Structures are given as structure tokens and as C-alpha cells.
């Protein structure tokens, strides 16, 4: 049971960290110059990710994590109660 909880936790964390890597190191640095050919408003897209977008995604990621973990905690608690 405990292992299940831990495995789901690791899955959530790895998926969110992949997105974390993509929006900052990926779009903001590695492919930034490539993305700069696209424009949103007055921003070149790569520049926007580096100075704005990545920060918004970071906030979003933590709140998605809070939501998923609270759900997982609740499921885990229900399961352990059923067991006992």
C-alpha cells in the first residue's frame, strides 16, 4: 500500500519536473533563439518564455502538484482506513 503511494508520488513529480525543465531550460534557453522567430504582441516568443512565461508556468506547476497530492493523500487515507 505504502509502495503504491510512493510510486504514484514519484510519477506525479517526474511528469511535473519534465514540464519544469521544458518551459525554463528548454523554451527559455536551448530552443529560445528558434522560438524568437514567433511573436506574441511585442514579445519574441523565446524572450517571453525566458523573462515571463517560465515564471507563470512555475506557479502553475506547484498548484497542480498541490491539487494532485491532496487527492492522492485522500485516496491513501481512505485505503488505509479500509484496511484497518
Amino acid at each position, binding site marked *: 500500500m*505504502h509502495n503504491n*503511494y*510512493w510510486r504514484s*508520488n514519484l510519477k506525479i*513529480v517526474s511528469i*511535473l*519536473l519534465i514540464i*519544469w525543465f521544458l518551459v*525554463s*531550460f528548454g523554451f*527559455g*534557453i*536551448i530552443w*529560445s*533563439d528558434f522560438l*524568437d522567430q514567433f511573436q*506574441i*504582441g*511585442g*514579445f*519574441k516568443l523565446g*524572450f*517571453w518564455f*525566458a*523573462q*515571463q512565461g*517560465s*515564471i*507563470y508556468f*512555475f*506557479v502553475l*506547476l*506547484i*498548484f497542480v*502538484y*498541490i491539487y494532485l*497530492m*491532496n487527492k492522492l*493523500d485522500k485516496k*491513501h*487515507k481512505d485505503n488505509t482506513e479500509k484496511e484497518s
Partner: protein
Amino acid sequence: MDTQLLTYIFVGASFALYIGIAIWSRASSTNEFYIAGKGVHPIANGMATAADWMSAASFISMAGLIAFLGKDGSVYLMGWTGGYVLLALLLAPYLRKFGQYTVPDFIGTRYYSNAARLVAVICLIFVSFTYVAGQMRGVGIVFSRFLEVDINLGVIIGMCIVFFYAVLGGMKGITYTQVAQYCVLIFAYLVPAIFISILMTGNPIPQLGFGDTLVNSDVYLLDKLDKVTTELGFIAYTENAKSNIDIFCITAALMFGTAGLPHVIVRFFTVPKVSDARKSAGYALIFIAILYSTAPAVSAFARMNFIDSVQEVQYKEAPSWFKNWENIGLIAWKDKNNDQLIQYSSGNALEGVKPNFADGRGVSGERLVNNNPDLTSTNEVYIDRDIMVLANPEIAKLPGWVVALVAAGALAAALSTAAGLLLVISASISHDLLKKTFMPQITEKQELFYARCSAAVAIFIAGLFGIYPPGFVAQVVAFAFGLAAATIFPALLMGIFYKRLNKEGAIAGMLAGLVITSAYIIYFKFLNVHMNSADNWFLGISPEGFGFVGMIINFVVALCVSFFFTKPPADIYHLVDKIRQP
């Protein structure tokens, strides 16, 4: 009312508020002193974490740095926010579940070794003092420029305030003071940004404004800025000057370093439940993101405004802020072509970069400098990047009360961070060194007494840093993050996610990270400054980014060494299992 008087009123009122809160929330036990009795609401803790985190460097220096670095400045924006994702997902909930007082506490217990605890204490004290030195310089700058008090007197006033609420209130006092300080500093940051955004683009939201068109024109602000900077011989504002690998490593070092900074981690020990630790990391990042997403807008506005208001202007007609900052030595002008006009472009104005002022005034009334002009460029202006945020309201000709507000905000940012750091230092001395290592027989009351004493001593040392600022503050910031990334972060991460790691592995990893990162930074920043360029760097990675390499070395060494020694005892396996459960 004149700006000076307004500044006294704003700063005085904010100080009175902090002292009032300190008296209301005194700490009476070690539990309250170290971790505020674990009774802090996640939103309040989020604000306190944000104030703790956003230092004089974030408030005063960052936007100025980005204004002159352009896109390269993104390393600070991503680096100093992205670390919170790591904190929230990988560290904060588990460390809260572990439920002790300090970061070395976790390392000492998890690796069942006082040697590991000691290595952690050394890293922690080094990282924290490096940081405090920067805060005190910030306090000094604000006092001397806006209140026209002697810098030393300013630092002493700042010390007294911090002493009062940190020594009396401990973590509890600091937490609630930081909530107030967050409100002051974010208000002070946003008001001028919104004003300037409206003036320049007509858009009241700075985050959108700097991607908008300039007032009465259909040219985008950033396009105009790219054009102007290229014409003056700089690299275009929205393009990188640094190599991608260097930007990658600096960002990574700042991110992992942020997640390993003890004064930030310890904030998550103060909330009631594990789920609250996650929540308060989320709130903290929202509160931080409000400033960090505004900063690049402020930078772009400031760069544009700065160029507009000094380029080809007669020195005699130059705006008063230019002369005020010149008077305290953070701007200098050398009329290279004797036309009495200010010319600003890329390159250094002076040989040796920093001005060395002489007595007396030149033909136009400018302060004379002893430096020879740097004739490799036509640039005539030396400007210290730290002044951009403070000077911004004046450059944009905003009313006096906005200028006063910014002064109060900058002080709030510097004091809140200094207090958080001092508490971490004092807790690691009284708790980890005395109670857990050298004097285990002391009672809780004695421990509290020692905690207050070490806070007082730490404040005194920090004050000395402010009065006699070590010239190397800017250089050692790379150190603080590099070391946190290369020592503390890996030890914490593997402590939670890899049960098999034993004390030999952890200690070897931390020492390897510590030694190699320090050696690289000291080599390029102190011993061979002239060699500090991309050609000589390892894989083109600057000392600022080397903490990332140190971190990888730590992981590799720890895993290899661990393999040759026996497994950790069974109770450590139980401990790790326990902290992994909600």
C-alpha cells in the same frame, strides 16, 4: 512636502510597525524561537518566505542588472523562481514531515553522523554570512542616498531594528514582521512600475506593458529598445551575449542553490501540517512571482528612459538625479571629446572601470576622477547598476511620495532577509553546535539564551560587514548559490529519495562538492582574475554557473563512495519510510 521629509515619514512609520509587531509576537520557548511553534498559516508563511527570499539584491539590484544585461538577465528570473518548484516537489513536504528545527539537523540525523552535521553547519554559516553582507550594503546605500545620513549611522539603525525583533521574537517575531515587510516591499515595487508603464505604453499592467507599443506610436517598446541598443554598439536587448551552455549552468546553479538555501528551507518547518508545507511553497512562489514578473518590465523601461534622458544632453542641463547619484559616487562622467554633452554607448568610460573620485569640479561642473579615460570606446558615462530601481521613479519624474515609498520598500527587503539569515545562523550555532554536538546537557532555557546570544553576535558581525563592506560582495554571491547547490541540495535530495546512501557517501559527496566548487570560484574570482574569461573556463562554464557542475560531482562521488561501505542501519530505513508517508 519635500521628498526628504516624506522619506523620513515613510521609513519611520514602517519601522514603528515592525517594532510593534515584534513586541506583540515575542517568542517564549525554543520551539517558538526556531520554528514559530509550527503555528503559521500557509498564506502568512508564503508571504514571510517571499520577504525572506526577496533581498536587497532582488529589490534593488536585479532589475538594474537585467536592464544592462538584456536577455542574459533571464538567468536571475528563471533561476531565482524555478528553485521553488524543486523545493515544493522534492524537499519541503518531506523535511516538514521529518519535523526538526534546522537543516543540519536533518543531515545529521539522516546520515547518523555528527561529522555530516558539522559539514552542513559550516556550509550553512558560510552561505548565510555571504548573503547578510549584501543586505547590509543595501541598507547603507538607501540610507545615504535618501535620508542623507551617514552610511555607518544608517547601518547601526538597521542593526538595532533587526536586533530588537530577531533577538526578542525569534522565528515567531520574524515571521509576522516579514508579512508586514512583504506588503510594504511589494507595494513599493509595483506602484512606480505601474506609473512608468502607463507613462510609456499606456498599459497599466507592467507585465503586458513591456510587450506593448509606445505611447503615440505603433512601434513596440522592445523593438525600439533593440534598435537603440544596437545603434549604441551594445548587443540587441532581446538577444543573448553569453553562450547557451553558460546560461544553462548559471540558471541551474541558481535554481538548485535556491532549493538548498537553509534560510528558505527552514521556513517550511514552521507550518502545522505536511500538506501546508506544499501549499505555502505555492503561495510563496505566487508572492515572489508578482515581483519577479514585474522586474523585467522595470528593466526595459529603465534602460529606455535612461538612454532617452541622458543621451546627447548637456551636462549642465542633466536631470538632478544624475547629479545626486554622481555626488554619492555611483555615477561618473568623463567628457572625452570636450563637447560638454553626455554620450553613452557600449564600452567602459574609465580605465579600471570604477571611478576613483578626485577633489574639485570640471569645466561643466562634473566631479573630477583620477582615472584616465578608456579611449577604446566613446562611452563617457559610468553607472553603477545597483541604482536603477532606486533612481527609476526620479528618472521617470514621478511624485516625491513614490520615491519615499521605494526607499521604505528597499529597507523592508534588506531587513527581512537579514533577519531570516541571522536566525538560521543563530539556530545552527545554539542548536546544532551546542545542544546536539558539544553541550548536550543544557536545558531548553539555556539553549534559548544561547540562541539569543548567537543572534546578537551574528547581528554585530553583519553590522561590521555593513560599515566596512568587503569589496568582494558581488563576487561571493556566486559562492553562496554555488555552495548551496553543490553541498546542501544533493545531501537533502538523496537523503529523501535514496535510502541506500550511507554517511560515508554523503560526507564524501558534500566535501567533494565544497572543495571543487570553492577551488574553481577562488581560482577565477580571486587568484587569477585576469584569466576569468570564456576561453579559460571549463567547458565554457563561468564561476557563477559552476555550482551546477559541483552538484553533479557531489552526486557521482556520493553514489560511488556509498557503494564501498555498509548500508545505513535499519532505523534509518524506517526514518526515510516514515518521512515519505503523508
